[in-house]
């Protein structure tokens, strides 16, 4: 390759030098959230087919690791399921932009032998179950929501994530919004001081425990539940409708939030208002420096993100992610202009 280029340069001269530079391979390193990893890998490989000179390498180490590596400057971009905190933004050596890429959701999964109906939950009921205040399946709070379902009097086993995770962040962010007690006792983070229950490692750990333990309830990502065909329950949204998480109802939650989107896109869309919105939804973000040192990489990444926000969105649904609503894409396209590429 290199010799070919050298010969070409020698033979044809300065004009080819420019062409040679344009075909230069651009390699970009990124790291972060595991949750959007499948779609990111799909995007990078599809984009590489269109632009063979662009190679983006993404390591799904987890949101926390992504933020740490971005701050340390060992990767060019990061990715996170939860927005960076103000402290983390201050610790970064430059201004960091948050750019939503797709949407995901958490769904409640449970195991009740003999119950075939899909159960309905409200936020406060889920919070009370995870606080250990509702301990039996035939508690009046649950039976009231599910008339006609014969719920057993067995103990509820709460299953949560044992690893710190963006999935947990979305789940507890929702619980904190609907339950003041949850907000006070446990709070919101990628891992909390769980009041009750057992921990499973990653989505498969939680799903494994739930499928094996009669009377258990846990939460997994929508993508995981869809891929593994795990049944999950309905959750009541702010408008009072019982919603099942689907690609459409998750996009609807983002559409409702688009109207009052903050300029830095750091927004939680759990418990979103509006009809048809699934309440335990969230954006996942790419983290990019506004003024990165390497302008070639910055330009390439901006081009890639523009593609991902438009043509790339069509890959989302098939993988179980909800595509961004039009309004959000428009806002982001404007925000991308802030990234200095020269």
């Amino acid at each position, binding site marked *: 390759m290199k010799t070919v280029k050298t010969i070409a340069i020698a033979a044809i001269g300065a004009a080819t030098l420019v062409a040679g530079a344009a075909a230069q391979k651009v390699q970009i390193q990124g790291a972060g959230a595991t949750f959007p990893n499948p779609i990111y890998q799909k995007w990078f490989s599809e984009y590489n087919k269109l632009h063979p000179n662009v190679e983006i390498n993404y390591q799904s*180490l*987890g949101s926390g690791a992504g933020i740490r590596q971005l701050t340390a400057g060992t990767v060019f971009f990061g990715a996170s399921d939860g927005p960076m905190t103000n402290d983390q933004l201050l610790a970064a050596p430059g201004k960091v932009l948050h750019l939503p890429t797709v949407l995901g959701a958490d769904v409640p999964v449970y195991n009740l032998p003999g119950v075939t109906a899909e159960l309905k939950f409200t936020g406060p009921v889920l919070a009370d179950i995870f606080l250990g205040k509702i301990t039996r399946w035939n508690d009046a709070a649950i039976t009231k929501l599910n008339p006609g379902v014969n719920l057993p009097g067995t103990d509820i086993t709460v299953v949560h994530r044992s*690893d710190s995770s963006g999935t947990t962040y979305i789940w507890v962010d929702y619980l904190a919004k609907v339950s003041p007690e949850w907000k006070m006792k446990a709070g919101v983070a990628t891992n909390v001081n769980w009041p009750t229950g057992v921990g499973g490692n990653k989505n498969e750990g939680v799903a494994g425990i739930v499928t094996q333990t009669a009377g258990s309830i846990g939460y997994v990502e929508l993508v995981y539940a869809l891929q593994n065909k795990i049944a999950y329950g309905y959750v009541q949204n702010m408008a009072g409708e019982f919603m099942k998480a689907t690609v459409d109802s998750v996009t609807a939650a983002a559409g409702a939030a688009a109207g009052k989107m903050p300029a830095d896109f750091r927004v939680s869309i759990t418990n979103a208002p509006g009809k048809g919105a699934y309440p335990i939804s969230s954006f996942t973000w790419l983290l990019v420096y506004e003024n990165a040192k390497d302008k070639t990489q910055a330009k390439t990444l901006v081009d890639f993100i523009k593609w991902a926000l438009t043509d790339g969105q069509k890959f989302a649904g098939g993988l179980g992610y909800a595509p961004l609503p039009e309004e959000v894409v428009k806002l982001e396209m404007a925000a991308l202009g802030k990234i200095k590429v020269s």
Partner: protein
Amino acid sequence: MKRPENLAFRLGTGLFGLVLVLLVAAIGVELFRQSTLSIQKFGFSFWRTEVWDPVAGEFGAFPFIWGTLYSSILALLIAAPISLGIAVFISELTPNRLKPVLVFLTELLAAIPSIVYGLWGIFVLVPAVRALETSLPQSLRASPFFSGPPIGLGMLAAALILAVMVIPFTSSVAREVLKAVPVTQREGAYALGATRFEAISAALYYARTGIVGAIMLGFGRALGETMAVTMVIGNSARASWSLLAPQHTMAAVLANEFSEADTTLYLNALIEIGLVLFVMTLVINSLSRLLIWSMARPMQAAAPAVVPAAESAA
């Protein structure tokens, strides 16, 4: 006169020996350096506080220290007699033709990756433990050792899986130690009119330092075991006497929470747990070495003392 190549050889090997010492020291120093923030903030209360709250930034290692020691000691209580039985059976009672088969099988157990043990734990052991737990009589369930709902995941499952994982190590070493007992010992016992049981007891007594070493090797392995334990212990940061309760270990919390630890203090607290595990492993290994040494001293021509290898925490 020393030959120059002898000197070079001594210096060379001495250097490699030094590398080992430096490596251990470097690990200790680095763990300490990376956990300064947590050490300054919590001091020694870190060892006995039972709160693990990443949201409020309150960290204490007690539930993890408790879970690690409790599960390892329980595992040892189960594994030690079984391993000894295996070792005695293979070295003293098995017909020669069957020996290689049994030795191969125990060593095969040691070669199984721990994640495979974990999967077996989730799909086979945990349901069995759950069935056992639900069938416990009510009177037992009232005791603090069996309180709480029978989920299957918890201390009992963790101790059992650890025991299975420790057995090949402990029994292999114990077998080697028994093999090293001089034939004259047994012949002497038989000459004095001992029964087979008495002769084996005498051999066991002769090999006791090595057997303690074998058990401590198993203990070191149990302390650091991560994947299989985290898959069956329930990962709940609450210390409890109950065998049914979901608990947590130091190695498991590191594996679980390290990648997403988002604040510096959180990360520092996790690394301090690594430091605690490192110190505990060091102390336990030193103590076992001391024990073996004090047992070996009265009989200078002792059986080969087995040095428990410092099991890595990873």
